[in-house]
């Protein structure tokens, strides 16, 4: 049975990473997406972390690994006790994840703008080996500032990478905004796009499971604040988008 919210035990695991007693899932904009991916979408398991046929999840937004650590622990990729001393000398879990230290972590990330180009290489490599596995990469809206993403978006579109899905978690943290919206930037390069409520598990599941036969997919997951409202800067963003739309 599909969940509609992240189960309390996973929130407890998240609290062990953050030290935050509040069960406030929306303070972690990626938690719902990552939970739905591992619970309902990805074909991967703790005993298959080296299986060439596994689906790959690449956390590009490496400065927010708490949700991913909590979900991987909940799914048994590593012991939950690892969550209690993140970034300590003896810990395998850091404030940015290292793929060589953590079972289930597919890339080391932290510096922004590396996950999507790596994911494009992953998808190309799987395709040319006739491997049916999927590649899902998670980036942030502000991370898209890095020009390396623009390179990768164009390449993935031109190469028609149907096995690639990019999830953009849009918590409106980008300083300069994306007039016209984020999805449009992928659409113009030939990607299939979907805009979904980043906390709606059913909508996320449907969008993340979908793939197009001859082009990559982007899912823009819009997140809300702790009161269920769009993030504050949405107002400014909407104005900008409208102005741009009018001008166009």
């Amino acid at each position, binding site marked *: 049975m599909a969940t509609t919210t992240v189960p309390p035990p996973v929130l407890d695991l998240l609290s062990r990473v953050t030290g935050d007693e509040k069960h406030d899932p929306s303070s972690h904009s990626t938690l719902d997406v990552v939970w739905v991916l591992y619970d309902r979408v990805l074909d991967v398991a703790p005993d298959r972390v080296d299986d*060439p046929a596994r689906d790959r999840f690449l956390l590009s937004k490496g400065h927010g690994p708490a949700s991913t650590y909590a979900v991987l622990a909940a799914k048994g990729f590593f012991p939950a006790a690892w969550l209690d001393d993140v970034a300590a000398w003896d810990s395998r879990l850091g404030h940015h994840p*290292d*793929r*060589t230290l953590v079972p289930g972590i*597919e*890339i*080391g990330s932290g*510096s922004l*703008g*590396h996950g*999507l*180009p*790596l*994911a*494009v*290489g*992953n*998808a*190309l*490599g*799987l*395709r*040319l*080996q006739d*491997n049916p596995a999927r590649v899902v990469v998670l980036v942030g809206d502000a991370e898209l500032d890095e*020009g*390396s993403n623009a*390179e*990768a978006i*164009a*390449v993935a579109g*031109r190469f028609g990478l149907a096995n690639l899905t990019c999830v953009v978690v849009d918590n409106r943290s980008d300083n300069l905004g994306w007039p016209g919206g984020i999805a449009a930037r992928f659409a113009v390069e030939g990607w299939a796009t979907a805009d979904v409520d980043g906390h709606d598990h059913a909508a996320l599941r449907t969008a993340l499971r979908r793939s197009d036969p001859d082009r990559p997919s982007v899912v823009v997951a819009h997140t809300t604040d702790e009161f269920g409202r769009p993030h504050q800067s949405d107002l400014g963003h909407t104005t900008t988008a409208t102005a741009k739309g009018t001008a166009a």
Partner: protein
Amino acid sequence: MTRQTMRERFYADVGPLLDAEPRTALVLAVIGSGSLGDVSARHPERVIDVGIREQAMVGVAGGLALTGLRPIVHTYAPFLVERAYEQIKLDLGHQDVGAVLVSTGASYDASTAGRTHQAPADVALVSALPGWTVHVPGHADELTRMLRRAAGTDDRVYIRMSALQNTRAHPADGLLHLVRGGAHVRPLVLAVGPLLDTVLEATRDLPVRVAYTSTPHPLDTAGLRTLAGPAPVLAVVEPYLEGTSAAAVAAALSDRASRVAYVGVPRDVELRRYGSPKDHAAAHGLDAMGIRARAKELIG
């Protein structure tokens, strides 16, 4: 018949390499794409030209390697090493995967193109990252051997092609080789890659020994210690940023009172001139006359 350049050899070698090694994939950012003949048609999925996008080129190579493939990545040295340096550090090294990076346009080969197309710091930069092997072939035949060997491993390998090459190939086994011997007390001049012939000409009648390596990193420290002897007097002639090999040489000889000179591309001045590579070599003291003068200083 004119001799095949290293670059021509690389483009000629890539097809047979892709034929023979199913794990290999060539990743390009336009440069080289038009010189491959029918290779792209024969291997449409394994010749990947990402357009003029060097960050994506190296990132894609890292992603390919993560799926078990063996990427060979090629473009001009400044765009490969300097523009995409963080990708080399993170998308290859930090992911603990490898690739074969093959650059063209060594140091001042692109003399008429100006500073934008010159990267004499490339060997220093690549050597500063963990786990890399740097090959500086002195002849197209050495390049062929290095490329074939590197394609069969998962190592991180940088192969630096050059327009200049020596008249004949030498062993490309990662070791130092004595090319001109003599009494052990004579100073040793170590020539790296394509500068060997110039060094031999420059020191023809001087009382020095001459050794050769095409793999400056990691340096064959055991070979250096053997050849340099208990009281080393040594010049390293390197066709890139002067002193690039200084840390490795100092570490190799740390227990011996040594006198070492480094002859390379000066690091403190940007040469704002065009002209030919020969003009640049002369300006940098990397022609026979300049190297001879430095060798004579060493002899004292």
